[in-house]
């Protein structure tokens, strides 16, 4: 049991997502363009993504580790499903109905096409939305608490 315990925490610490490099990319020692290049990765190199920092993702490529531009990575590039259904929808049904019986096979609850087609207006929920609304001053105070400052950024040309 003692030996198994560390395994329980494995997904938390060792997040490693198989990914592919979509173009020839420099593997950098640090998450910065002017950092030293560890190695140049060829297009379609298979790597393991470990963590993200701004526009950079730390990866493992064979024995080498370092940072690549986040947008140079694509996940699940083979198109094959890597993992099964996450099961959240089924778990949700159990929580909502108390049983995982026929509900699961006849369609899930929540926001899917069928539910949208059948939906009747819920004016009580609509009225609730007002309760949580925030005004200009509330939004600005909240931004200041998080040390967010508004910046002028123009839209790109279409």
């Amino acid at each position: 049991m003692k030996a198994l315990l560390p395994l329980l925490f494995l997904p938390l610490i060792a997040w490693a997502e198989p990914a592919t490099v979509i173009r020839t990319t420099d593997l950098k020692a640090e998450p910065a363009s002017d950092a030293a290049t560890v190695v140049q990765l060829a297009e379609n190199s298979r790597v393991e993504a470990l963590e993200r920092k701004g526009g950079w993702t730390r990866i493992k490529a064979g024995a080498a580790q370092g940072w690549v531009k986040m947008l140079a990575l694509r996940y699940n590039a083979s198109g094959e499903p890597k993992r099964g259904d996450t099961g959240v929808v089924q778990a949700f049904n159990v929580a909502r109905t108390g049983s995982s019986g026929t509900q699961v096979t006849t369609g899930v609850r929540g926001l899917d096409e069928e539910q949208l087609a059948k939906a009747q207006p819920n004016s009580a929920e609509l009225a609730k939305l007002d309760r949580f609304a925030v005004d200009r001053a509330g939004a600005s105070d909240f931004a200041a608490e998080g040390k967010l400052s508004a910046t002028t950024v123009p839209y790109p040309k279409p």
Partner: protein
Amino acid sequence: MTRAFILLASLVVAAAAHAQFKLPDLNFNRLLDTAKNLGNAVHEPTESEEIAVGNDVAARLLGAAPLAADARTQQYVNRVGRWLALQSERPDLPWHFGVLEAPQVNAFAVPGGTIFITRGLLARMTSEAELAGVLSHEIVHVVKKHHLKAIQKGALASLSADAAGSALNSVNPEARAKLISFGTELYSRGLDKSDEFEADRLGVVIAARGGYDAYGLPAVLQTLQAMNASDSALALMFKTHPAPGERLDALGRMQSVLDAYSTQPQLAERFVAETKTAR
């Protein structure tokens, strides 16, 4: 409005011309009605019409999935969303943000300034910058009136011109019901791809304006891309949006903006603290 006026004016001129040729059965009132209805059909919805249509559509979406029970998270999402909306060209709409009690991964923008995000999507995010990226994308849909224009186009295609006009200002209940049904179905059919790509590009800008790490939206798209595409929680979102990989490719055009604002705060700790009970 100008267009309706020109139409009316030209009909009046035509009527006057006819009058000179002494057409006795000319019904001036009917001509005026026709001009008014043509005006309705082409008129841009007013802001209050937009908000009213939005409320009707939002009530239907809430009929499919109610708000998540956690008041703290609801308030938090409203604070983030309202701050971002202030960075847009429509800062003073009656903005409302809501977390829907649904396991699916999705977010919705409703005309007039109501924005929903599902609990399933919130649960897969790791920072306020990621939440900001998604809310900014939805804010662009509202600012650019993507849904409103699609609803209007659909109404004109399926209703007569005067029914479409009176549906907008709720004069005709039957036409109004059709308009709202069409508006709700839109969330099953999706917008034009070009609207989604525009919301991604401009959404990145809104998040950067709000002071967030601009990579929030791309990070969420990568999370979606890493999920199993056949996961039932993704079905509707994947049906109504371009594939995440395609959206990430398109955001490559925004690399310089993304990089210029990549060191702004991500606020991962605040996000986790404020949403933990809802996730």
